[in-house]
Structures are given as structure tokens and as C-alpha cells.
């Protein structure tokens, strides 16, 4: 016997002890697909025959089977299952996970079972056990279909069992081998004029074999010369003027293989009516029936039969393109995709309703799409919307043609819409769906949805998939820290499309008197196979991300922010920079006008830009830190050291011999320390100046990260520098361009020039420079290289390592520093940052962008030496 089972099913082996269930299961299924009651007993009680743990064992069995089914894994239950009460929970389990229960009954003669059991020393139960099981089986097998098993296979003797084969077949809805391209078409409702026009615009070519054939198979056959395939989301019938023509077109395409069609609720209601069920004639069914009635009597019956057959053969939903695309009339939840059950079919036709009705008496629909988190794009119709509505990777393409809207097609994978306006309103909708003038400006469904994020998308341990670095792991405690900071301090998440990564220093310099030197950075990139690097002056202020929009409309359209703001400037942890609203407004006006002055909008075809910058002075943001730590240390040092020197010198005056020498030596040490404290004081003061208005601030942009449709990681850093330098010229009082030099790391002279520049920068007390591969993204033999390395100056590092770090005994210890954690973190954060931007420019739901931004913040809370 050939046993044919769906790829995803719950196979229940039924048969008395000794009937050969386990042997059969092992022969036809993977060991991991089989869950047996014996195995569960053994797991719990170390004895697979211990009947005292039977209840617990079955509980465990159901848990394992349930988990497997939830994950879409075929599961075989190997237990006697001879009583209906043992099978009932298994059928329920299959139903819960929307997969088909299959029964394989091994009804072998009692004698065979007994002989097998006798041969096994662990089965010492008497013959009555098998006899009882056998009789239970006999009593109930006839009812297996009624119990809910969709397929029942019965094998009655060992030979038959040996000869049986098992074949797994895909479900009807599994068309994942169809790769497209597709044209997905919304609810037609008999609007055949518009359908014909739409198919023409989409490039389908029509052939008519026999214009006079008025049967269902008569009429035109459309096909696309490039092999595109149309997919109809259902509701072909009712309400509109040419229902039967619409069905003819679709049916012929389906038969010809140039289209697929899923059923709509109207289609199914018509089918039941045609099958003679008692159906209330409402919601446009009358129009369809009138068309049928108007047919000549000679073809009416055959057409009615064909129509009912065509409708009956339709499959609730389709999974296409390797699982990346799902089509259903009213949508499809992730956990139901590609599965089959009555509930799946109901959902495909009607979606989910809350049980309430709205002011128009229509059922309030549960918005499954707002909770949708699946990977597959779901295309559906059913509820008319004024514009195709994207939400969380689902799209409703029913633009209400029959109600005077449009008939819309979605081109896949292009994600482009093509639509044909209705020639007229064929039917008045019960609930108006076309936009009232004032609502036309409102936020999109996705934006409205995105005005609030869900905790389940950020909390707990997370694995975030990035293009640049695969999966990046965020630990639970880091996510918890990020939740607090994000909630208490961060700006509106709609603005937060990016957070900057941490940056590693270069390897510790080989020179004993230094910690950092550009030669190490050059060597790093050379070792990674990057020939050219860019050295950018490092500014000492606070990292700032600036989002600038061309106008309020751009802020609303692109960021969903309708507060009237045109931009935002925030810190490395997502906090707004300016508390003073007026100052904030002036800042953005200035930045915006600079971008307008060089027509960045036109040149990059964008209405917004995201800039990575440093905002100075340091003291503007870090005043508290400066006061309580830097200035305090300088004050304490300046007060303490001269006193110590004086006391030591006074003592030296009265001491003799070795004591005197010691005193003088310690005094000299303290004098040197005094100098170090003075240098430290000078170092931090360089980055402080008072600001009481916008005039005091300086903004140095160094990456033009993203604009509409593009993340500019494909441009090299010279492009970023030069483009931004031009912008800076337009507002020199606020914007400061960043000096840079290109260095060929294979050319000693070029490297020397780079080092000389660093000497000059840091010799003047500057912070130092950042060395980056010239291309924004560089991959070495072992994957992504560090996007940037900092080489900080000797004086600047006093702020980091303390006033006296340059003393030999201190420096020699500080030189031992491990960079690998820092670098791995820098790469993870960089990959997440870019991933977030890419998702944003692809217009993915905010939660997908926020996931990355949240991830960067969480990684920033990793324990790592803050001085690196």
C-alpha cells in the first residue's frame, strides 16, 4: 500500500502492543520525528514499561509533539492509541497547530502480537492485555474519520505492513517552487472593464479561441509573454456589472497556468448558493445571480456546474516564492501560513473579528496585520482601503474598484503598484472608504502603527540579523539596561534611525613613550589588504546624530513625526541634545539652510538626510563631568603637590645623608607631578568654552550616512568629506568641515606625511585623528574590518588615563591593554547601525529599525574598558 501524507502532519500510529508500530515508524520516519510513549516513560522513570508514570508520560508526549508542530515539523506519535479517549487529545493537538491528523492502523492478528511480546522479556504482561487492546481497536476504528482524522490507512497483516511505502506530499497551498515574478490583483467584484485594462497595462496578451463560446471555458485567455503570473486575491464575483466575464478570464488563466486565484468570502458564498444551500441574498449576490439567470437556458446549467466546480477547487491561500510570499483573501497569520485546517480556511476568507460591530453595523476586524511579525510578505484584499496599505510586511491591495475606487495590482518582486481607476461607482459602500479631504494628509497605516512600539520586539535576549555581520547577539541584561535608558531619556523612536558604534583605538604603539600612534593604524589596514586610508582630524566634543528634513511635510511623510519639527539632534545614547526648544529650532534652521544652499535635496533626490557629527564644545554637554571630575582633580592636584614639595624640601634642609637624598628625590618627583597636573589642566581646558546661544556651538559632520532610498556606505570617505565640506561652507559660523589626508599605506613617504600631520595636530594639543579605510566598508580575509581606528595624542590622553600617565612606571603598565572585545563590539554595533539605516531606507516597519538601534544601545552597556 502507498501511504500518502502531507509534508506537515501529525501521524498517529494505532495498534495493540506488539503490532509492529515502532518498527514501522522507524522504517519510514526519522528517529527524531517519532515521539513514543515508551520513550517518554523511560525519560521520566528510567523504565519504558513503568505504567505508574503513564499520565505524566503522555503529558510530556503532547508537549513535545506540540512544540514540533508549532515549528512546522512532521511528528509521529508512537503509542497504542487504541481508545478514542487516547486519540482525542492528539486530534486536538493537530487542530491547534492547523495540521492534518493522519491515522495509520496496524490491525494485525492477535497471535502475531502475542508472539512478539512473548519474545521480549520486558513485556511480561498477560495475554489479556493484547486481547483487550485488540477489542478496543475493533470497536473504534470505524469512527476514525468522525474523530477528525483526515486520512486513515489500515494495514492488516505483517506482509502488508512490510510492503507499505510512505510518501510525503506538499499541501495544496504550497506553491513555493513558483518563483514569480507575479502580478497580484485585488478584489475584482465583476469590474471586468477595469480588469481587462489592468491586464493590458500589466502586459498580458489576450487570445480568444472562440468568441461565440459563452460557456465558462469560452472567452479570452490571457498570458504574459515574459512568463509573469497573475495572482488574484479573491472576490471575483458579486456587486459589479460583469461578474461572469471576470470569472471566465480568471478561470481560463488558471487553467492555462498564467494565474492563480484564492477564494474570497463572496466566491464561497456564491458556491454554496450554487450547490443549493440556503443562502441569504445580500451584499451583491443578487447581481451575480441575475447575470446567471439572464444566460440562455441551454448553457445555464452547465455553466452553473462549471462555476461551482471552479470555485470549489480553489485553495484557501498560497505560499509562493520559496515561502517569501503568501496570498490570501483576508490575510494570513504567520502561524497559519502553509497549513491546512478549517480555521485556516476561515481566516483566509474572513480574517478575524473581535465580535463587536462598528457604527455602520459591520463587524470590527481584529487587526492581525498590526501584530504580524512574519518573514513572508502577505498580500491580501477583502477590506477596501483608499490606498494600498502596507503594514508590517503585509499589504492590502483592495482599493475598492466596485465602490468607485481603483483596481490595483502589486508587481512582485518589484513592490510597485499599478492601478486602474473605476469607470464609475458600481455599488455604494456601507462604510465610506474614500478619503475625506482632511484625512488625506494623515499618517500612513504603517506610520500610525509605528507611533507605538511593542516591548516584545525589544526585551529579552535577541539575535539580530545584519547584512554586514550575520547575527548579532544582544544579552538580556544589556537589553534591560537599554530599555531603561531608551524609556527615560531617548527621543521619540521615530527619529532614532541610527546610533553610532563605539570606536576602537589602534594597537598600542611600539614606541615606549606612547600609547597610540598612527603607524599602528596604518599597519592594521595594510594587514587587512586595504591600500589606502583616510586620516580625519578627531574633534573633541560630543558625538551627535543629526536628522535634517527639507520641511515639515518631509518629517511627516518620512518619519511620521507630525509635531511640526523638521529635524532632531541626539547623542550617542539617543537623547536630545538641546532642552531649549528655541535653540533646537534655530539649530535645525541653520543646518537645513546649509543643506538647501548646496541643493543637497536635489542632488541626492531626497527630502531628508542623516548626518554623523561631533558637536562642540565638549563643555556644553559634559559640564557636570568637567566640574565634578576633571576640574576637581586639577584643583586637588594643584593644591596638594606644591605643599608636599615645600614640606619635603624643608625636611631635606635638616636631614643628612641618605635621608636627605631620599627627601630631595621625592620632592623632585612631586615637582614633576605638579607639571603633569598643569598639562592635564591645559588639556581639558582646550575643549571648554562657554556657550549661551547658538553662536557658541560648532558642528562637525563627517559621515553623510543616509538619504532617501540610499545608505551611503557605497561611497568612499573622500566623497563624504568633500560633500560635507561644501555644506559646511554654507554655514561657517556653525558648521566646521573636518580636515583630512589620504595615506597610501604601502608607500613609506605617504605614511610619513600622515604621521607628520598627526604629530602636528597632537603637538598643538589636538585630540588626534581617526584612521579609516578609504572605502566605507572594507572586508579583509576574515570579514569586515574595523570601520575606523582612533589615534589619540599624548596630551589628550591625560584626560583619559589621568594627569600623570606619561610617567614611565605608569605608562609601562598602561601599555598592556586588550582590544579584542572592544573591536568585536565595534563591529557588532557598526553592523547594527548600518542595518538599521538600510531597513529604514527600505521603508521597513519602525520596529525593525528600532530593533537595531536598541541593539546598539544595549551593546554599549557591555562591560568594557571605557578608556579604549
Amino acid at each position, binding site marked *: 500500500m502507498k501511504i500518502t501524507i502531507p509534508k506537515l502532519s501529525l501521524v498517529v500510529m494505532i495498534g495493540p502492543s506488539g503490532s509492529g508500530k515502532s518498527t514501522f515508524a522507524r522504517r519510514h520516519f526519522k528517529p527524531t520525528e517519532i515521539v513514543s510513549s515508551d520513550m517518554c516513560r523511560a525519560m521520566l522513570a528510567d523504565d519504558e514499561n513503568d505504567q505508574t508514570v503513564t499520565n505524566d508520560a503522555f503529558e510530556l508526549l503532547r508537549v513535545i509533539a506540540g512544540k514540533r508542530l508549532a515549528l512546522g515539523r512532521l511528528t509521529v506519535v508512537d503509542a497504542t492509541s487504541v481508545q478514542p479517549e487516547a486519540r482525542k487529545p492528539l486530534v486536538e493537538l493537530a487542530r491547534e497547530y492547523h495540521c492534518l491528523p493522519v491515522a495509520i492502523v496496524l490491525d494485525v492478528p492477535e497471535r502475531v502480537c502475542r508472539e512478539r511480546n512473548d519474545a521480549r522479556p520486558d513485556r511480561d504482561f498477560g495475554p489479556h492485555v493484547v486481547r483487550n487492546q485488540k477489542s478496543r481497536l475493533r470497536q473504534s476504528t470505524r469512527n476514525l474519520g468522525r474523530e477528525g482524522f483526515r486520512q486513515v490507512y489500515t494495514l492488516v497483516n505483517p506482509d502488508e505492513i512490510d510492503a507499505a511505502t510512505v510518501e510525503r506530499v506538499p499541501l495544496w497551498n504550497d506553491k513555493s517552487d513558483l518563483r514569480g515574478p507575479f502580478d497580484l490583483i485585488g478584489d475584482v467584484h465583476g469590474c471586468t472593464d477595469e480588469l481587462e485594462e489592468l491586464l493590458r497595462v500589466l502586459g498580458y496578451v489576450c487570445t480568444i479561441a472562440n468568441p461565440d463560446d459563452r460557456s465558462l471555458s469560452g472567452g479570452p485567455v490571457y498570458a504574459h509573454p515574459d512568463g509573469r503570473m497573475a495572482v488574484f486575491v479573491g472576490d471575483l464575483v458579486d456587486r459589479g456589472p460583469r461578474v461572469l466575464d471576470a470569472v471566465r478570464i480568471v478561470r481560463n488563466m488558471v487553467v492555462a497556468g498564467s494565474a492563480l486565484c484564492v477564494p474570497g468570502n463572496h466566491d464561497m458564498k456564491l458556491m454554496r448558493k450554487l450547490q443549493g444551500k440556503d443562502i441569504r441574498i445580500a451584499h451583491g449576490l443578487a447581481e451575480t445571480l441575475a447575470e446567471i439567470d439572464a444566460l440562455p437556458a441551454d448553457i445555464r446549467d452547465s455553466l452553473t456546474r462549471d462555476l461551482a466546480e471552479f470555485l470549489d477547487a480553489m485553495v484557501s491561500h498560497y505560499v509562493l516564492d520559496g515561502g517569501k510570499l503568501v496570498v490570501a483573501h483576508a490575510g494570513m497569520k504567520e502561524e497559519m501560513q502553509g497549513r491546512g485546517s478549517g480555521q485556516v480556511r476561515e481566516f483566509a476568507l474572513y480574517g478575524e473579528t473581535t465580535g463587536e460591530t462598528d457604527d455602520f453595523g459591520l463587524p470590527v476586524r481584529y487587526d492581525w496585520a498590526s501584530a504580524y511579525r512574519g518573514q513572508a510578505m502577505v498580500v491580501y484584499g477583502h477590506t477596501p482601503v483608499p490606498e494600498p496599505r502596507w503594514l508590517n510586511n503585509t499589504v492590502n491591495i483592495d482599493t475598492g474598484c466596485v465602490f468607485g475606487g481603483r483596481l490595483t495590482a502589486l508587481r512582485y518582486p518589484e513592490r510597485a503598484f499599478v492601478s486602474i481607476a473605476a469607470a464609475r461607482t458600481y455599488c455604494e459602500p456601507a462604510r465610506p472608504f474614500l478619503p475625506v479631504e482632511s484625512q488625506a494628509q494623515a499618517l500612513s497605516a504603517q506610520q500610525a502603527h509605528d507611533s*507605538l512600539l511593542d516591548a*516584545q520586539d525589544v526585551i529579552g535576549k535577541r539575535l539580530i540579523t545584519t547584512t554586514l555581520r550575520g547575527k548579532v547577539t544582544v544579552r538580556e541584561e544589556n537589553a534591560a539596561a537599554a530599555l531603561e535608558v531608551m524609556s527615560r*531619556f531617548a527621543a521619540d523612536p521615530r527619529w532614532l534611525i541610527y546610533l553610532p558604534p563605539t570606536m576602537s583605538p589602534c594597537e598600542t604603539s611600539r614606541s615606549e613613550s606612547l600609547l597610540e600612534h598612527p603607524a599602528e593604524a596604518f599597519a592594521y589596514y595594510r594587514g587587512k589588504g586595504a591600500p589606502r586610508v583616510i586620516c580625519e582630524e578627531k574633534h573633541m566634543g560630543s558625538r551627535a546624530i543629526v536628522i535634517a528634513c527639507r520641511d515639515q511635510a518631509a518629517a511627516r511623510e518620512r518619519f511620521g513625526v507630525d509635531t511640526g519639527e523638521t529635524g532632531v539632534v541626539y547623542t550617542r545614547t539617543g537623547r536630545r541634545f538641546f532642552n531649549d526648544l528655541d535653540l533646537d529650532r534655530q539649530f535645525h534652521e541653520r543646518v537645513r539652510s546649509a543643506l538647501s544652499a548646496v541643493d543637497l535635496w536635489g542632488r541626492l533626490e531626497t527630502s531628508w538626510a542623516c548626518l554623523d557629527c561631533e558637536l562642540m564644545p565638549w563643555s556644553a554637554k559634559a559640564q557636570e563631568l568637567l566640574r565634578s571630575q576633571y576640574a576637581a582633580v586639577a584643583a586637588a592636584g594643584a593644591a596638594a603637590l606644591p605643599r608636599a614639595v615645600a614640606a619635603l624640601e624643608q625636611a631635606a634642609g*635638616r636631614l643628612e645623608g641618605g635621608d636627605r637624598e631620599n627627601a630631595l628625590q621625592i620632592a623632585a618627583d612631586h615637582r614633576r607631578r605638579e607639571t603633569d597636573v598643569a598639562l592635564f589642566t591645559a588639556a581639558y581646558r582646550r575643549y571648554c568654552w562657554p556657550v549661551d546661544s547658538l553662536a557658541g556651538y560648532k558642528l562637525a559632520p563627517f559621515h553623510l550616512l543616509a538619504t532617501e532610498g540610499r545608505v551611503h556606505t557605497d561611497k568612499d570617505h573622500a566623497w563624504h568629506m568633500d560633500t560635507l565640506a561644501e555644506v559646511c561652507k554654507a554655514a561657517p559660523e556653525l558648521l566646521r568641515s573636518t580636515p583630512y589626508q589620504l595615506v597610501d599605506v604601502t608607500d613609506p613617504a605617504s605614511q610619513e606625511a600622515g604621521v607628520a600631520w598627526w604629530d602636528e595636530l597632537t603637538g598643538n594639543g589636538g585630540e588626534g585623528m581617526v584612521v579609516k579605510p578609504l572605502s566605507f566598508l572594507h572586508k579583509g580575509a576574515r570579514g569586515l574590518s574595523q570601520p575606523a581606528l582612533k589615534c589619540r595624542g599624548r596630551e589628550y590622553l591625560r584626560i583619559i588615563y589621568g594627569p600623570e600617565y606619561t610617567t614611565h612606571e*605608569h605608562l609601562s603598565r598602561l601599555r598592556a591593554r586588550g582590544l579584542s572585545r572592544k573591536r568585536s563590539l565595534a563591529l557588532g554595533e557598526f553592523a547594527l547601525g548600518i542595518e538599521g539605516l538600510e531597513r529604514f531606507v527600505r521603508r521597513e516597519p519602525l520596529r525593525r529599525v528600532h530593533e537595531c538601534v536598541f541593539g546598539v544601545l544595549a551593546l554599549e552597556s557591555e562591560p568594557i574598558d571605557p578608556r579604549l
Partner: protein
Amino acid sequence: MLLSITTTIEPATDLGYLLHKHPDRLQTYELSFGKAHVFYPEAAANRCTACLLLDVDPIGLVRGKGSEDGPLAQYVNDRPYAATSFLSVAISRVWGSAMNGRCEDRPELATTPIPLEARIDVLPVRGGERFLRAVFEPLGYTLTATRHPLDETFPEWGESPYYAVTVGKTTTLAELLAQLYVLIPVFDNQKHYFVGEEEMEKLLAKGEGWLASHPEKDEITRRYLKFRPSLFREALERLAEEDDSGEISEKAIALREEAVEGPLRLNEERIGAVMAALRASAARRVLDLGCGEGRLLRELIKDKQFDEIVGVDVSIRALEIARDRLRLDRLPERQAARARLLHGSLMYRDQRLEGYDAAALVEVVEHLDPPRLAALERVLFEFARPGTIVLTTPNREYNVVWERVGEARFRHPDHRFEWTRAEFQAWALAVAARFGYAVRFLGVGPEREPLGSPTQMGVFTRDGSVIQ
């Protein structure tokens, strides 16, 4: 950093006997955190000064001696220059016998009060000169203190916390050293690092005989409290921004708010009023959103009306304190099953908060940036959607009553806004109308016309109509 002890008893060089250190030597001692040098800049018959100079190793403090981390996190640190607990440790190591009153050669010297003066060049003092005097003067010291400037380039940054301090008294050297030993770390209550647990016990033992009767005893003792950060807390601190003053511990903030609002009565009244409203709602399953350290939770747990009590806060630190205070892990199983704490945020929709009878938000909304209020409104009223919501917030009008707040400032450094009664009511009515709730208002605390009460309360009840 330098501690100088001077005496003018004749012969002053007896100080050498008392300290067990010869005035004509410079001696160096190795300590775990660096070196200590002892020497005498002057040693005449009428005046003798002994110096203890501490040479703290700033790198060792951060990196530790071996593989272990040192007690400090920051290289940029005042410890090498200022007198802190390290000085106390040095006194006990180098002058331990003197501090214990032992003097083998001249035992009578050790028990004789002599005129003594101690000078600390750089003493960090939280609490200013007032606190210095309050600590030293009750012990009979004369005190002179000079404040060091912070940074003359930036006078707007204010003054430094450092003082040059000289205290004088006729007493035994042992008492002077013991009191310095205990008191030096007290002034610097900020970053309080002991080298080890046993040091702290020693410290308290040195207070015998005088600490118990000291008028500032509580403050002195309180400042010894050692703060042990949790893993979560450390993770959080790494996200601190440059402008977050590490100075403001949550405890300090709470104290400050209490100080502003006066005695604890208002807080108690507020909790009382919220409890009354929750009881009146007949709720059985309640949320305390923004539960903080668990003051309301404690009352809720006592009341059998409530079957399920969930405290939610975004601050992990606050939840840790709440867990300790409520002793949730030590409650009987049945009691403990009623109450639980969740780490969560009102900025994100959270299914764990859905389906409750009532929710309390006690002094929560004012901690949100006004643009983020919209998120809270949806999370709370649209999704969590409890039957009753009891919400309190300060009445800004009342602030003029408190001299420490005044009209312009807020009661708490983390308040992002404070509402007048009209502002609160306008917000509450609009939100209630939008989400299908009715709202009634009550004042909490002593009412003062025309300002109203210090706290305002809104009680929202779901009225069955749908969300607009």
C-alpha cells in the same frame, strides 16, 4: 597628599617618641595602594611637625596589583591628591601604635593631653564648612578651613569641594589620630572605597567613646554605608551621559524630594488616597505602574481585597530595592504568589499589562518628556486598558508654598514638567474622552486657597464606549 601633625609642648621633639618615628629620618612604607613617607620638616624644642605623605599609585588603583581589578574605576581621580579613606588606612599602618596609645619608652607621654594641631592640605568635604564645623567643633577642636578654587578660567563652574583644614586641640595624640582616622573618609561621602571589609569594622571600633555622643553621629554613620552596585546597575552606568552627574543617587533624589515636600506626611496621604480609590474600585487584580521602591506595593500586599498585585518599573535599581524591602522572596508562598515585580516600560506596548482591573500611577507621568506622553496614553488607555486608573502628579501651583522649590523650579531633578490643576485636568479629560473613560479629580494633602493641594489625583474609569 599630606597630613601634618604639629605640637608645641616642650620638648616638642617628644612627638618622635609618641609616633615611634625618629625626627631625623625619612622613612618609607609600602602600602597596598602606594607608599607612605614619614618625615619632619621641623623638629625644634618648642615646635615639632611630623608629616605623613601619601604617594598613591593611580594606575594600581584602577588595574589592581595582580589580575584583580582595583577599587577605583577612573584614572582621572582625585585620590592621589586628596585626603580620603586611603589616608585613614595609612595612619593605622604607619602610626598604628600611636593611635592605640602605646608608647613603650615614655608610657606617661601617651596618656598626657598635649597641644596638638593637624593640618590636611586637601580634604574633600561634601556639605561645606558648615559640616566641617558640625563634625569637629563638638569634639572640642578649633578649626580653620580655606576653600581651594575649582578652575579660575571658568568661574561659572562654581567652587571646588576641597578645603585646607587645620584643627587644633589639647588632647592625647592617640585621640587625635583616632578621630582623624574615623572622620577623614566621612567628609568625602561620594566615592567611598575601602581597601577591604575589615577596614570598615576597624573604623567603627575607633569611634568608641566619642562617636555615640556626637550630635552628627547619624550622618557620620550613614556616610559609611557602602554601596555595592549590581550587575544591572553597572551595565546601566555605562550608558550614563557626560552630563549625568554621578552625584545624584536615587536615594539622594528621594531625600531631596522629601525635603522639598516636607515631612513624610504628604507621601503617606498620597498612598492613602490611592489605596482608597483602588479599594473603592473593587479591583482585585492591580498594577502599580512606576512602582519605584515599592511604597504602594507594601500597602497593597497588606490588603486581602487584592488577589494579584504587579509592580512595574523601568528602573532596575528601583526594582531591586523594592524586592529587598518587600522581602518577596521571604514571604509565605501563598502571599508571595499574589505579588510580583516586572521590569517594563510605559513607552512600549506590553501585553503583560493587559487585562487588569486597575492600575495606579503614583507620581509617574511627570518623569516623561512631554513628547513621549502620547506613547504612555496609548500603552495605558488603549492597550493595557484597566477598568480603573488612579493617577497622581504634583500640582505646580502649590510649589510657591515651599521655599525650597519656588514657582519656577520643579520638585525633583528628574521631573520633565509639572502641571497646574487646569493643565492636568485638560489633559486628563481629553485622554478620557479619546479612550472611553470617565474621570474625576481629587486633591491630596493640605489644601490652600487659591493654590489647591500639593498633589492632584485623577481617577479614570472605563465607561464602555469605544476608542475614538
